[in-house]
């Protein structure tokens, strides 16, 4: 563990600069309680790994990469038989409300978010990173541990799948403004 003042100062700055971003990242993917837990976990890991802190422009993707794994682990821990059973409706693409539903402002939002939840998890993540975190594909590649070319390909495929799911859910008319 880094205990020198330089490491501590770097961590304090990292924490102040990126706490809100990491919390927002988690809130966009899980419920409020889990998001706070996950954010704490992310910064705890970051503190332990402060010696591995990358250069400034890569810090955000480094933190999001940790958050991605923390949330994945959180979900999988919950996936232990019995607890996950209560979540089956969500993971098996039912209409059960996810965390986003709490703050959905319009029926239109609900429709597109429901469509997203019917995509495979990796497609959902790429769309969220690109659309909500507004992260360039090169950074997404770092977070997910895949090539930039793979991100490009998966992003376009995910967008097409999202449009298809949205249409299946009856979004075409609304898109045309005639619903």
């Amino acid at each position: 563990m880094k205990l020198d003042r330089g490491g501590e100062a770097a961590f304090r700055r990292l924490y102040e600069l990126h706490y809100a971003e990491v919390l927002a990242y988690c809130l966009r993917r899980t419920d409020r309680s889990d998001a706070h837990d996950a954010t704490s976990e992310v910064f705890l890991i970051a503190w332990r790994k402060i010696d591995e802190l990358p250069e400034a422009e890569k810090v955000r993707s480094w933190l999001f990469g940790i958050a991605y794994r923390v949330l994945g682990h959180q979900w999988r821990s919950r996936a232990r038989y019995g607890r996950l059973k209560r979540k089956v409706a969500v993971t098996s693409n039912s209409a059960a409300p996810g965390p986003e539903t709490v703050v959905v402002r319009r029926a239109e939002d609900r429709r597109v978010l429901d469509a997203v939840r019917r995509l495979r998890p990796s497609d959902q993540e790429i769309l969220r990173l690109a659309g909500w975190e507004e992260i360039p594909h090169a950074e997404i590649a770092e977070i997910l541990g895949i090539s930039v070319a793979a991100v490009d390909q998966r992003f376009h495929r995910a967008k097409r799948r999202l449009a298809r799911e949205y249409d299946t859910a009856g979004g075409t008319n609304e898109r045309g403004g005639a619903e």
Partner: protein
Amino acid sequence: MTDADVVFAKFVDANPVPDLPDLEALRPDVTTIISGGATRIDKPRSAAPTLRRGAWAAAAALLLVLAVGGLLLVWPDQPVSQPAQPQSPEEVLRQNAVSTAEDWLSALNAGDIDLVMALSGPEASSEADRRVHEWQAGLLAQGMPIEVRGCVVASVAGTAARVECEVRLGDLVAIELGVADLVAPFDYSDGLITWRPYTGGNIGDVNDAYAGYLRRFHAAEYETLCSPSAYSPGTAIQDRGLALTGECAQLAAPLAADIAQWIRDGRPEEQP
């Protein structure tokens, strides 16, 4: 602008947490991490409890330092235990891959096909996949579960892993044929499992025995429930003349003991 772009723009607009400034107020004091080291940050509720926790953490840390210092004085050669190192992404991947495969098998052994499907990746989420799990559920209902003896990660490639689980099938026909001890391989990625055909034994011989017995002694039901021709192409996995479905299992599973006896008897023309 394509349709996909339009829908993506709607998705961007539906961001449930569009603004960050409000979240700044929720940031706990950084010292709860730095002073605690391995202590997690509690969710912010009020300033007072946070301060109290901070004070307790500081007191606990001081006691720990004193205790360790005392120990060092008594046993100067005793190595100081290091704080637990964070797991590498690959270690996390390996653990998650094994635990998810075990969860998947537990769900299968519980006959919870919805949960099995929820843990299954897109390549293993077809109607035929669901049906093959229903076949297994049919065996389970007749007291023939799959005993899981252990799972290990066989290989890792990027963010994916191959998990191999040693299993012993409870299927009486498989036991009779000596092919009950098998390896169940799984591909793990994105938190989901794609099941792969058993290795380590010829499971086809088991399916062949079921099909042979049913064709011979339950021909009409076989044609309706277990013949591959009873299912639309691609909707059921078939092997050696047996459609692996829940419907077929309802016929076949209760006959497993009879089929095992029939095999022991040398597969005579008459029913055992």
